[in-house]
């Protein structure tokens, strides 16, 4: 670990344009891919770490892959580092990388058996930010109360981003909220507008501290079902309209985060529309064709992500056939799946006519859906098949011809499916893309 850290520091220092770090619970990967498109459109060559290689060793591996045989990075002034960093690993990575900008997407409950608790994680972030060079820009989500005033005692430049189009607000904070308190006085927060969970336009009822005005924001958001969205972004220098091939409010957040980061990196405004060139990452509504039928693979691994994915998929009110899967990470003694009880399945009952439940905790998911009312009057036709490949085939058999199948799952099942799809020749292996 210590050797890796030193290697990382040495290699990162050789990147001519420095590096940008993107961290947070959800949206890191997509934000990185959007930003990398804007960087390429600016004539830069982003060195981007692969999905999931977001801890110290993964970054070292990424950089070594770019290095020459002597172990040095090529001296190319178009090179810029773009690193998705695991939220728990930020304190180890930040001091080694000395980035030009750090982008925080959001913070939600995730892997509590690994990260202990949110306030602890935020405190660790604050602590490690103190080691930042004075010139590093902090790119912060103004709508997330835990992030908006992160390390506010530092004089580093800050760019806030957020959503302004209140057309998409929900009636109230929902059950996937982590109910942050005021970052200044720990008082209770009130919201004039909630987009989802605890993201929105907030203000402390006690001391009056309020969401900072973002310099980069989505002024108008058009959501086109489960396929794409149209986002009018305002930055200090331009107002690009982005046609994003990704659905949902959470991708609107990713788009403004990427635009804000591009602004922090002083990319030319002409490069911003390139954010639309983002492609779906692995398991981000990734589409594969099996026997002439579209199958969409989507990762969901925490209450907020799962809920927003389901809301996005089912938001058009058209019933969809699904494979819902859940696994724990028993091999690492992390058997906690309690988070499925914070997914808002209740509000979505009746929209899924049939689902196959899969993964090694499929039965826990079945119990969850039973108590969410999915087996009552508005019953979904549920089948349980813990084996992912058999589950997929069963779900395909049960999906009427011409209709797509939507797979929503935690990582392990998706990797097992991808592995099987690779062997069937239906998708390319990971290293090809």
């Amino acid at each position, binding site marked *: 670990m210590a050797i890796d850290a030193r290697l990382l520091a040495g290699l990162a220092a050789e990147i001519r344009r420095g590096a940008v770090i993107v961290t947070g619970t959800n949206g890191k990967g997509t934000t990185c891919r959007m930003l990398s498109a804007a960087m390429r459109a600016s004539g830069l060559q982003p060195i981007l770490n692969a999905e999931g290689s977001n801890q110290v060793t993964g970054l070292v591996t990424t950089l070594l892959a770019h290095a020459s045989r002597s172990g040095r990075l090529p001296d190319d002034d178009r090179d810029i580092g773009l690193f998705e960093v695991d939220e*728990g690993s930020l*304190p180890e990575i930040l001091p080694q990388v000395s980035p030009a900008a750090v982008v925080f997407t959001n913070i939600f*409950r995730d892997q*509590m*058996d*690994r*990260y*202990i*608790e*949110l*306030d*602890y994680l935020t*405190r*660790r972030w604050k*602590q490690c930010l103190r080691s930042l060079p004075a010139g590093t820009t902090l790119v912060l989500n103004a709508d997330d109360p835990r992030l908006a005033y992160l390390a506010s005692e530092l004089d580093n430049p800050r760019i806030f981003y957020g959503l302004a189009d209140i057309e998409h607000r929900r009636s109230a904070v929902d*059950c996937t*909220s*982590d*109910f942050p*308190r005021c970052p200044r006085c*720990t008082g*209770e927060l009130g919201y004039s507008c909630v987009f989802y969970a605890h993201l929105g336009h907030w203000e402390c009822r006690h001391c009056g501290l309020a969401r900072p005005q973002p310099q980069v924001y989505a002024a108008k958001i058009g959501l086109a079902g489960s396929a794409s969205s149209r986002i009018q972004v305002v930055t200090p220098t331009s107002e690009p309209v982005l046609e994003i091939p990704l659905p949902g409010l959470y991708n609107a957040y990713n788009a403004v985060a990427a635009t804000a980061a591009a602004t922090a990196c002083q990319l030319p405004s002409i490069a911003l529309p390139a954010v639309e060139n983002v492609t779906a990452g692995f398991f981000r509504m990734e589409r594969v064709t099996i026997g002439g039928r579209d199958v969409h693979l989507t990762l969901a691994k925490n209450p907020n992500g799962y809920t927003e994915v389901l809301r996005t998929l089912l938001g058009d009110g058209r019933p969809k056939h699904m494979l819902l899967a859940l696994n724990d990470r*028993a091999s690492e*003694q*992390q*058997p*906690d*799946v*309690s*988070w*499925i*009880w*914070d997914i808002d399945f209740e509000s979505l009952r009746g929209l899924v006519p049939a689902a196959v439940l899969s993964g090694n905790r499929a*039965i*826990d998911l*079945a*119990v*969850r859906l*039973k*108590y*969410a*009312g999915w087996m009552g009057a508005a019953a979904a036709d549920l089948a349980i098949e813990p084996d992912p490949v058999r589950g997929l085939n069963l779900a395909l058999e049960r999906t009427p011809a011409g209709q797509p199948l939507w797979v929503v799952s935690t990582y392990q099942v998706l990797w097992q499916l991808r592995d099987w799809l690779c062997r069937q020749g239906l998708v390319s292996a990971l290293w090809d893309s």
Partner: protein
Amino acid sequence: MAARKLAIGYLYPEAMSGYGDRGNLASIMRRCEWRGIATEVRELRLGDPVNPDEVDLFVIGDGGEFHQRLIATDLADVKGPAIREAVSQGSALLAVGAGYELLGRFYQPCRGVELPGASLFDTWTIQQGADLTAASCTITEARADRVIGDLVVQWGDDLLVGFENHSSRTYLGLTACALGHVVVGQGNNGDGLEGVRLGGAIGTYLRGPCLPRNPALTDFLIRTALLRRYADAELAALPDGLEHTARDTAVRRLSAVKRAAVAAS
């Protein structure tokens, strides 16, 4: 049979529902609904008073160290007397994790002054291991003294399954009765006992959340709450095949893990 109705007091719904705790509430409400028992949920937040005559079943969930500090005094001073009174009148109560800890006599964090408890249970809790509030505490240090894993408890003739994740050790006073015996996991403090039971009030480290996979425990709480209000506490049997399968699957899996560990050692 006359219509029956239960009032559920949900303590600190925002601060203390950090680990899927809404699943416990859902379990209680659905199992009442399926039997034609009406429920009414009263959310009891910071500062809200509690009328002991008006709550038949209290639920308090789990929260982090910040939330524990946030609610401790309110729970001890504002709500504690009424909760003790209600339980002595026969109300049911389920307290999980940090909620369980704060219903004891006191909670001693690894640094700083102790937090007051509501003294419903004759228990006390000592936090061990790393100080999460220390700026330099790394994740490895934070996890070192934590008990993280499955927890299986023998409760009468039943097995309860769940998950535990805590750095605190809870100790029972002379007048306290444990909820059950640990089969897999650590429980209160490693002495083989888990949780506490006082009449119809239960404190436990079982998360998961604990009620959905343990319907017998849910029904115990509902029956206790009904008895307080009605002469008739009869509960119709429900088809619990799925819940039992989930529980038995967990027990089977753990037995296999345990056997493998024994074989490896």
